[in-house]
């Protein structure tokens, strides 16, 4: 490849990382003053990153080594006593794949935004934020240790905050960005706790070192229970970032951001970060933790899919579809389908970005996001229509040799089925998986039919609709091609297995008897010992999923395609009114959070504040008042008692003087008598004191 070894040194990976950062710095400070408001700066930066990423990817492809890791040194970043954190770059196959996903989608979204955001008052700011996001996401992918992962994790969150709230004049956008960040923070709380646990027990942060330490020298007190707990904590981060139930609420709201942002961040890259993290740290998770992951993912998959069935906002449908697909990935990882889960991340990135950009194209043309305003658009926007159809086929898992989604989703379903066959008590997972697939096909075709076929529902808007400019359609075309061929040019999922292989679990189950091993580490056993089961499961899964997809596409066609209309959606909705309402209102999750979490918390903070100013400050002021009172009392005491005593002495003297004055009768006889009395006294005293010896 050009005679350059892109993975020979850290230079090229670092360049991938730093280009967008440089673009961000340039854009935020002087972007406004540049020609074209500097969109080319960001575009060029991410373009360079893309080129290098692709070059690196190509080199990795050529190497065809599933255990390839470029050995880069780590640098000491900070030291605090014995505790040090090193920073470095990890570059292996997963990194290469993720880098391509991130930079490619990012580049296309940059390009698309040139058209989509044209004329926005904060045009250059938008590109600055996009660059910041690209930087953070690339950093996240290149990290080689937990702490830098967390750092970029948070930076990604911030760029998402900035981009969701880009049109902050809208109250809904302002709310959404805050909600996104805070909800993510809740997940990050767990994530950080998990990192702390690992640091505490192992004292290491670098992935490799952590896995080694777990395998070789796991401290005795780092029991499986703790490890499971740490795993679940780490997974909480993914729950937040990848919008898994119960922290999924932010993602649909995040659609308030500009559509390219939705495509980039909330479909293809950032939300995949959670899945990526689980992939990266896969060896850390115990079987129990993986089960938790599988259930959360499976539930999210079906839960979000049901909501998507009835939504009328085109972006909201896609948002819930994203949540659902992320659930698939997470479930895939949880049930042990490591390759399938990550593969789905890869394929999903392309077709979901495609779908979002298509929806953006539609929104750009119609200035409306409501499906009920659309219809018959295929004539006006043929490129968008074709692209979106390809995306829909991909996400629905339309049968073999055509689009990518089929392979990855099939892989996940197969892995799930394999687990269920091994351990039938988890049959619910399979139901989640297959039913979710059915719903997915249904709501996506509903979307297509309502948008592009039939008669225009809003003639006025239809009149003004037009195909988008080339900067917007080119990304669509590229992504459409990629949606098809990202599955390795019709070769299925085998090629992926050459590069991504399930890592060995670092968790050595210490005290598990031989017989119980299967029961506890079931999902592990499936892949290690039960290849025939797995194979069979995949066969079943393929047949089942094809069947399900066809049935649900047929149903969707019968319901929504204008030439059939055999089934009335309205009637069904009418008949199942409570269910419909429940789904339409997203299971009232937001309301429940509002009522049972947010409001009580706010009320509690008010209580705290009142406690603070009332009780604590009251105590302080009370002390002050008590002191003042004491001072007053002391003052009174001073006035009355002490000063009183002084005056009292004076008065006594006066009184004594008066009393003595009484003696002074002026009568000579009395004087004499006193004199005699005095003399007698003196003599008496003299007698008593001196003479009575």
């Amino acid at each position: 490849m050009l005679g350059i070894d892109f993975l020979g040194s850290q230079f090229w990976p670092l360049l991938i990382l730093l280009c967008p950062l440089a673009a961000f710095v340039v854009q935020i400070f002087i972007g406004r003053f540049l020609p074209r408001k500097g969109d080319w700066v960001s575009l060029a930066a991410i373009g360079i990153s893309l080129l290098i990423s692709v070059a690196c990817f190509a080199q990795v492809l050529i190497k065809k080594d599933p255990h390839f890791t470029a050995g880069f040194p780590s640098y000491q970043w900070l030291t605090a006593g014995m505790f040090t954190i090193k920073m470095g770059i990890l570059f292996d196959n997963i990194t290469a794949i993720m880098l391509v996903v991130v930079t490619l989608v990012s580049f296309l979204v940059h390009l698309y935004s040139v058209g989509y955001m044209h004329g926005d008052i904060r045009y250059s700011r938008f590109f600055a934020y996009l660059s910041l996001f690209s930087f953070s996401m690339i950093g996240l992918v290149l990290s080689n240790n937990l702490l830098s992962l967390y750092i970029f994790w948070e930076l990604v969150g911030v760029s998402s905050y900035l981009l969701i709230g880009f049109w902050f004049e809208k109250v809904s956008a302002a709310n959404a960005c805050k909600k996104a960040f805070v909800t993510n923070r809740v997940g990050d709380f767990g994530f950080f706790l998990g990192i702390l646990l690992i640091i505490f027990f192992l004292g290491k942060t670098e992935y490799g070192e952590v896995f080694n330490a777990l395998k070789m020298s796991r401290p005795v007190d780092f029991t499986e229970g703790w490890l499971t707990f740490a795993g679940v904590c780490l997974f909480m981060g993914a729950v937040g970032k990848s919008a898994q139930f119960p922290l999924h609420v932010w993602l649909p709201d995040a659609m308030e951001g500009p559509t390219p942002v939705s495509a980039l961040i909330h479909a293809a890259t950032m939300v995949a970060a959670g899945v990526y993290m689980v992939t990266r740290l896969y060896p850390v998770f115990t079987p129990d933790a993986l089960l938790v992951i599988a259930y959360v993912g499976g539930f999210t998959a079906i839960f979000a899919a049901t909501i998507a069935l009835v939504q009328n906002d085109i972006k909201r449908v896609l948002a819930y579809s994203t949540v659902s697909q992320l659930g698939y990935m997470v479930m895939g990882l949880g049930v042990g389908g490591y390759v399938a889960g990550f593969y789905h991340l890869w394929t999903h990135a392309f077709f979901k970005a495609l779908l979002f950009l298509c929806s953006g194209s539609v929104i750009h043309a119609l200035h409306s996001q409501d499906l009920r305003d659309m219809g018959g658009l295929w004539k006006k926007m043929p490129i968008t229509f074709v692209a979106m159809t390809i995306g829909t086929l991909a996400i629905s898992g339309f049968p073999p040799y055509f689009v990518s989604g089929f392979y990855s989703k099939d892989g996940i379903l197969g892995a799930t089925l394999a687990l269920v066959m091994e351990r039938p008590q988890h049959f619910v997972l399979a139901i989640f998986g297959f039913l979710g697939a059915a719903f997915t096909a249904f709501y996506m075709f509903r979307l297509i039919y309502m948008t592009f076929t039939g008669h225009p529902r809003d003639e006025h808007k239809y009149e003004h609709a037009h195909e988008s400019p080339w900067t917007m359609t080119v990304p669509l075309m590229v992504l459409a091609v990629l949606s098809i061929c990202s599955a390795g040019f019709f070769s299925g999922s085998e090629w992926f297995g050459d590069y991504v292989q399930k890592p060995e679990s670092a968790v050595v189950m210490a005290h598990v008897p031989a017989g119980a091993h299967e029961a506890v580490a079931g999902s592990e056993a499936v892949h290690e010992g039960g290849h025939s089961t797995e194979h069979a499961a995949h066969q079943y899964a393929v047949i089942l999923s094809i069947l399900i997809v066809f049935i649900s596409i047929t149903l969707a066609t019968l319901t929504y395609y204008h030439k059939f209309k055999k089934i009335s959606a309205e009637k069904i909705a009418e008949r199942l009114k409570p269910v419909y309402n429940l789904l339409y209102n997203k299971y009232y999750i937001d309301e429940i959070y509002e009522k049972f979490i947010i409001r009580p918390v706010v009320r509690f903070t008010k209580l705290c504040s009142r406690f603070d100013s009332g009780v604590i400050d009251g105590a302080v002021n009370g002390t002050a008042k008590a002191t003042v009172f004491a001072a007053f009392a002391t003052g009174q005491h001073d006035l009355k008692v002490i000063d009183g005593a002084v005056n009292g002495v004076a008065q006594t003297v006066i009184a004594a003087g008066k009393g003595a004055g009484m003696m002074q009768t002026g009568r000579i006889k009395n004087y004499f008598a006193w004199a005699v009395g005095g003399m007698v006294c003196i003599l008496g005293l003299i007698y008593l004191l001196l003479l009575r010896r």
Partner: protein
Amino acid sequence: MDYLSNFYSNPEIIKYLRDVFLGAGAINQSHILSLMTFVPFLGAIIILFIPRQNKDLVRAVAVVATGIPLLLAAQVFWVFYTQGGAQMKFVEMYDWIKPFNIQYFMGIDGVSAPMVILTALLGFICIFASWNIEKGVKAYFALFLILETGMMGVFCALDFFLFYVYWEVMLLPMYFLIGIWGGPRKEYAAIKFFVYTLAGSVLMLLVMLAMYFNTNIAEAGPNAAQHTFNLLLLTNQNMHIGILQNFDMRLLLYIGLFIAFAIKVPVFPFHTWLPDAHVEAPTAISVILAGVLLKMGTYGIFRISFPLLPDMAQYTSIGLAVFGMINIIYGALCAMAQDDLKKLVAYSSISHMGYCLLGMGALTAAGMNGALLQMFNHGTITGMLFLLVGVIYERAHHRNVDGFGGLATKVPVYAGIMGFAFFASLGLPGMSGFISEALCFIGGFEHDYLHVITAVSTLGIVITAAYLLWTFQKIFLGPFNNKYDNLQEINGRELFTLVPLGIIVVILGFFPSIILNIMGGGINTLMNIISKGAGHWSW
């Protein structure tokens, strides 16, 4: 002949000071610390001789009088950056009140150097933040400069008595600065601050005397005093006699010291002076209050409580961490409920100082480094926040969070900087606050019994994010409130006060080792003293 023998004839003492603290460093060769401390004081005196009408000259003198310490601080930074912070540097030692062995003993190590730098920096910046003061300019700047003398001295003093003197010196200007140039309830706030802090000082005085009279430095020679106020010597547990050998008395002394410092930090439940003082104080004084004064509390624990009574530091470490946890959570919850922006920032200060306490309670290297770094970072970040609050207050004449709305369209630069400061405050990685908070948590986790406390404290980052972003939304996002059509964008002078702090926040966010390497040596020395001192007692 060792220079120290001019002061101490006992070779044991000289050896202890040299081995543990001073190394082979020279004494009385550099007078940087005295200069940094007393140049502002000199400036204050000069200002008193300037005619009242000549306001600009007053300000210029103030700039020079704080600028010189800032330049010297740069030199201090460089020396520490190149040589590490394990030993006391720039040491000055003179007899002050000979009969009582009170010395003019100044010196800084890795623990105090960042604080000295922070003080010099904020002092300089606050002069510019006070540029708009028109009432009693002379008095204001003179008092401010005296305040800086006091603050600088506290961080440099190595003699308990000297420390106490500086501690009190700083109090009085503060009282007047709040009480004269403050807001509507300034008298109340000023008195509350003054009396509260003074109450703490009394405890410190008692402990100081108890320590003094119960040490025996075994000086030979006629009329030689047996006691010492030397903070470095007092760390030598061998010299502790009398009541200092009694467990209960030591605990009592430790608690006394803790309360004295806790009031300054402030630790729940001694924190209520802070919202009042912050809200009423003028902007620059709020910055100094939050940026420097609060640090004196934690610095006192670092410099006095821990090394002097190391066994008690270990004995009560969990308690300290619990206080930290309460501060973090409670401060954040209270902050969430505030309508007044300045009060909100004040409560967030309480919350953020909790991280320091948590890290200190851990008594691990990571935790202590985190706490010290958090002290520095909180100074810069909260300094920014208060400056920003001052900016909006100057324009809108109110600080009610709900009274704004959509300002980001009108004042984008201001909104951007505010957003920056908010994100720094909520511990965003890439900014300095994150590293210190993370280190505090890591340190807390390394302690054997603090897992649950640390885990609960981690919730603080969620609440902090919630209230800061909520506030940001209320002020800057959403539809524009037309009342503020004439709102002025932030001006050059204000930018000049904010940008340096912002740059420091970012640089330390990416390269924390710049300052961690300075702190590390000091913390290392401190940890050695603690573990050795605690080993001396076998309770």
